[in-house]
């Protein structure tokens, strides 16, 4: 049971931060299917930084991880510029642009990883081997009966995520920029009339989106797989999008949905183990979060309120 909470939370936290990235972009009126690509590219930049730094700072150094996270933040943000450029400047169809960005990210990172590996150590493997985060336990809180497990064996990034989540929430709902951003997704003409710059606000939002997704990506790389390889493109980005839609484009409900996904995934896996089924059956349980999503969407989709202007390039002349 403890394992469910521990694994569930460590899966939910990066998912949440990616979903938050998606929210930032969509709230500003840019449909974002590119989360998958953002997180992959961010993870790639982070992993590359870590690989380059590890000989300098020593293999076991945890400082590398934090620098890598920062690099992933920056890398994801820069890669997101591509999506922003396509959607805002080039007026491409935003869904198509998202798909393009994803395909390009997979191709680019795979290609670069094997090329860089070849030049660094001769063999063209498509992996950057990384370490794993140290885990921590919070002394007092972990003694609470059932929920205590949430605070045991935590990855440090889970704390960072909580801080980031609070900052992101504050930025979106309590600042002038946040309000403008949300207005850009509902009625960009009004923002323009009020003296705001729609294109710039959207551009920044998409960059934030990429940066947050990138951090989510590197956290997956450091916790679940302990390396960077094309297997980072497991579709968690899409799951984050589903969480966002399910959470009705609001940060707090989306967080709850992510936690639910994490617990469902970890719970399914543990259930499979505890029932003593052969490993084949884990596939059936891995399917669980997706089936649940689909079923729950059936009940909740009707009342959804997506940002009104999402998916349309801003056209000043349009009424």
């Amino acid at each position, binding site marked *: 049971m403890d394992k469910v909470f521990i694994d569930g939370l460590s899966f939910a936290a990066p998912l949440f931060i990616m979903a938050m990235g998606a929210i930032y972009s969509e709230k500003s009126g840019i449909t974002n299917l590119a989360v998958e690509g953002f997180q992959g590219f961010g993870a790639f930049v982070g992993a590359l930084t870590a690989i380059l730094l590890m000989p300098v700072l020593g293999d076991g150094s945890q400082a590398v991880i934090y620098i890598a996270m920062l690099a992933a933040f920056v890398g994801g943000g820069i890669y997101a510029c591509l999506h922003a450029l396509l959607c805002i400047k080039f007026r*491409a169809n935003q869904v*198509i642009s998202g798909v393009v960005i994803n395909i390009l990210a997979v191709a680019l990172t795979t290609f670069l990883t094997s090329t860089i590996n070849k030049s660094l150590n001769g063999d063209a493997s498509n992996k950057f081997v990384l370490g794993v985060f140290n885990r921590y336990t919070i002394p007092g809180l972990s003694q609470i009966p059932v929920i205590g497990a949430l605070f045991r064996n935590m990855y440090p990034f889970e704390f960072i995520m909580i801080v980031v989540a609070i900052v992101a929430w504050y930025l979106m709902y309590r600042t002038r920029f946040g309000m403008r951003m949300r207005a850009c997704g509902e009625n960009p003409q009004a923002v323009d009339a009020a003296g705001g710059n729609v294109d710039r606000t959207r551009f920044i939002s998409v960059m934030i989106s990429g940066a947050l997704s990138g951090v989510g990506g590197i956290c997956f790389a450091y916790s679940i797989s302990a390396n960077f390889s094309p297997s980072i493109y497991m579709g968690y980005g899409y799951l984050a999008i589903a969480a966002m*839609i399910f959470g009705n484009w609001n940060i707090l409900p989306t967080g709850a949905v992510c936690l639910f996904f994490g617990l469902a995934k970890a719970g399914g896996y543990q259930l499979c183990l505890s029932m003593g089924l052969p490993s084949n059956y884990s596939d059936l349980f891995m*399917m669980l979060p997706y089936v649940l999503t689909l079923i729950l969407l059936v009940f909740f989709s009707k009342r959804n309120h997506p940002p009104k202007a999402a998916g349309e390039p801003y056209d000043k002349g349009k009424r």
Partner: protein
Amino acid sequence: MSKQNKPQTRQKKAWFSALLDSEKWNGLTIPMLTILLTLVAASIILLVMGKNPLVAFLSFLQGSGFFPKASYGGGQGILTDLFNFMNILAPMILAALAFVVGFKAGLFNIGIAGQMLASGFLATVIIGYSGLSAVLAKPLVLVIGIVAGGLLGALVGWLKYKFNIHEVVSTIMLNYIISYLCGFFINTYFADSLTRSSKICSDSARLTWTNVNIGGVKCNLPLGIVLAVAAAFLVKFIFDRTVFGFELKAVGTNVRCARYTGINVGRRLVFSMAFSGMLAGLAGVTYYCGYYNTIVPKSLASMGYDAISVALLGNSAPIGAIFAGILITIFQYGSNYMSSTVGVPKEIASLITGILLLFSACGGYFRYMAHRRLEREKDEEIEASRAAKSAGEPAESPNAENREKEGKL
């Protein structure tokens, strides 16, 4: 008379823009420009890596059987490569058509990969292992492909129509569900103990005639390619000549307007997704029971996504999909040979596809820019002529019309 000279030089400069903007030609010129830009970008990457791009591009073509290779293995020849190329081209075209059909009705079928896997899996399990004779098995494989894909597509359309679930989300969820489900069944019941993928589909059910001897060369004759080309023309016919196709296009262009004219939008959504799914199902059987004869568990074909690039590059036109499919397949299929001759990792093929996609997503912008430039020149011309005559002659009417057009863009 010096003034007459000036517009002429301008016109010479503007031919490029005019070509990109013209209604008649932009379906051809914009993809051409995209391809050109991609080749330039790919050449730059290859040059940076210290390789000769021309040799690399030639290797792509040689690998796909368009040019003879330097040497061939026993019993193989240029025809072997060409037929193999067409064998993998067939599902690519069909999958691209699947995307086109959805796209015309305003739906993004991201779930092509899942629909392909489901139909390929079912066809393999039901027919591929049954030992039926070829006359019976091959058509049945096609039927199963169509039915399985169509039902999945219809489900997506129905979820959208009934419950307002965005098709992108539901198809992505279904992709994972199908992938895990098929993975589970293959691992548990149908796994080949040696290769860990599914047991092979019998030759009589396969949509490929294997090891046919043509002129002393062993070839795998693809049946799917005939199907793919026929399907492309069928889709074209449906969209150009039938009420059904027209209504789909109407729904895709403007849902509200379509509803107002009395088109049953919900039903059209379901139909178009079902149609799209059928084509994806056909792509699935030509892929898993044609080019391949086995399924690797828990992996979705990247073709499901590559097909989107093919469809976009082909201007989301059915015939365009054939040509775009040929181009992208040359890169993807030829990359194996290219990587062995030039020594570049074959992942560059997907990188080139990605760049191609990137530029084709900007296609609309290229046209917009060309249009704007033409307009500016027209304005200047009018201004020049006005300055020459200096008597205010109202000649702006064509100009005003163009302004309106720009607004719509």
